């Protein structure tokens, strides 16, 4: 069994890891659909998005490794951290649920990521800006795909509408975490690395509100619950996700893959 790597407590590194892990863990969840989609065409579409997200996470983890001062590579960061060192917002790690949940989570996260990538194109870190330029194209497609589906399902049958309402209610519990700032955001904005997450809230709400309106879905009330994945305190689902994801790296010390 390989022991975990230790992540230095640097706010700019945390900023990168929050973003990288959002892509990584979302990609991991979306990949679970491969072979199990509602129709073959959609199975293929979901896998394409998972591949985009994994690609984005690889670029970001590589960059985070370079910026960590420890020369970690993408796989050490992806597979050998303790759970508390994963910094994705909790929403990304929730089980894939039914197709309505997957679509609404994708809608929420792809819109968020799209807005984030738009801003990161102006990052003071030229490499991050380059990653953002490429990822933005992918996120725009993900957002469109999810929005179109949200409208079909929200304004489809009674059952699909009901499932969307239930999924949206669950997703909405985890939204505040996407827009609350802390010391990590302050450091990132000060360095010109990227925007504080709170800066995304207004455009995000506008875009999501438009889609939900077309989908005939009401915006749920603001929750009092606060998830905390981006500070390393995850849901119970995360441990199982990581146990599965990390298994081979942990079980075969010194292995070459």
């Amino acid at each position, binding site marked *: 069994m390989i022991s975990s790597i230790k992540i230095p407590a640097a706010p700019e590194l945390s900023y990168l890891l929050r973003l990288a892990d959002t892509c990584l863990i979302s990609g991991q969840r979306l990949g679970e659909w491969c072979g199990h989609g509602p*129709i073959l*065409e959609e199975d*293929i*579409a979901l896998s*394409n998005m998972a591949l985009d997200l994994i690609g984005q996470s690889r670029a970001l983890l590589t960059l985070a490794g370079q910026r960590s001062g420890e020369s970690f590579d993408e796989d050490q960061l992806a597979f050998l951290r303790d759970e508390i060192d994963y910094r994705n917002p909790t929403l990304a790690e929730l089980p894939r649920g039914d197709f309505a949940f997957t679509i609404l989570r994708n809608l929420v996260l792809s819109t968020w990521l799209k807005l984030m990538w738009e801003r990161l194109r102006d990052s003071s870190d030229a490499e991050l800006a380059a990653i953002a330029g490429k990822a933005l194209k992918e996120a725009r497609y993900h957002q*469109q*795909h999810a929005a179109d589906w949200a409208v079909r399902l929200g304004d489809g049958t009674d059952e699909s509408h009901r499932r969307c309402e239930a999924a949206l209610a669950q997703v909405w519990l985890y939204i505040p975490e996407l827009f609350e700032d802390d010391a990590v955001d302050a450091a990132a904005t000060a360095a010109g690395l990227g925007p504080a997450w709170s800066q995304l809230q207004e455009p995000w709400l506008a875009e999501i509100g438009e889609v939900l309106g077309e989908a005939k879905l009401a915006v749920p009330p603001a929750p009092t619950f606060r998830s905390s994945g981006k500070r390393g305190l995850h849901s119970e689902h995360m441990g199982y996700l990581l146990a599965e994801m990390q298994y081979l790296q942990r079980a075969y010390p010194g292995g070459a893959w």
Partner: protein
Amino acid sequence: MSTENEWPLWEVFVRTKAGLDHKHCGSLHAADPKMALQMARDVYTRRQEGSSVWVVRSDQIVASDPSDKDMLFDPAEDKVYRHPTFYKLPDSVDHM
């Protein structure tokens, strides 16, 4: 079993790069035009095959009847004078 609830079939045409024709490359099922276009992108351009995609409902295509093949296409067979190779020019102007 009933297939009335099956998503309709669409034919997919892909332009591989600017300047070329759209070429038929296959078909897929989709519930609506927008979905058909996205599915076409996801299914048929995974390896940079595309720069533009058309989708057409399969039931909207009008096709010639195979049994009319002789009538429709054989008459062109003896119109050899339509081809440049029919004309033998002196070597000195052979690049006309």
